């Protein structure tokens, strides 16, 4: 499997959430994703970018396009150095929220992608990696 075009955007403000989803839209279009797949990946990115801005106190999103034989994919890494998630199992539960949201951010984003990985520890920030294949 080969990867290419790695790049990064900051996630500091609400406006950065908009820029991140517009970037993910462009990337999925360039990879030739269908409209539903584009929309799922953009929506997952919006949820995870907001988590990084609000709960992670800011961070970055990195991306790389993937090629595995004829398959093409997009992998996004949402990285923050915020407080981390003390109880990951709880945070991944539908409807559970520590803030004012609906508690669908993490669990919902997971359902919208093909691969989902999260690393977090109290005081050590959070890193969420999602991949969607065409």
């Amino acid at each position: 499997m080969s990867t290419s075009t790695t790049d990064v955007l900051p996630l500091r403000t609400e406006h950065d959430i908009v820029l991140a989803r517009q970037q993910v839209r462009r990337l999925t279009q360039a990879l030739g994703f269908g409209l539903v797949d584009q929309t799922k990946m953009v929506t997952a990115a919006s949820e995870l970018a907001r988590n990084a801005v609000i709960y992670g106190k800011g961070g970055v999103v990195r991306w790389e396009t993937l090629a595995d034989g004829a398959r093409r994919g997009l992998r996004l890494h949402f990285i923050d150095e915020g407080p981390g998630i003390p109880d990951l199992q709880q945070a991944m539960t539908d409807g559970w929220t520590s803030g004012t949201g609906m508690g669908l951010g993490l669990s919902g984003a997971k359902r919208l992608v093909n691969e989902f990985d999260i690393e977090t520890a109290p005081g050590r920030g959070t890193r969420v990696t999602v991949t969607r294949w065409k």
Partner: protein
Amino acid sequence: MDRIPILRMGEYLLVTIQVDMHDQLALTLQDDLTAAVQRVGAKGVLIDISALEMVDSFIGRMIANLSRMSRILDARTVVVGMRPAVAITLVELGLSLAGVDTALDVERGMRRLRASVEESGASIVDLDD
């Protein structure tokens, strides 16, 4: 400051969301629209989201809240024009928008809005009889 315009047509309010909204813009619309419903005594609100390429949990929650808030202020809300890809994604995300009235396009939405406003008007007359 950015604002989404709210148009008045008689006793109805019409909002067309044509930009990729940041969170504060969505919250401002929620405030502006509920204030407008009260100020003009609107009976119905039509929200056109046909230009929205994505509805995430934040925007979805704003739409559901708007619908509930205007209901409490005695106005009906119909959300029109949701793209199929957005609907598919919303359901997988886990957001069903329960209690939100929808229609495929503006014309059907207005018809539905008029019908539900007339229906609620009729029930008041019934009570008076």
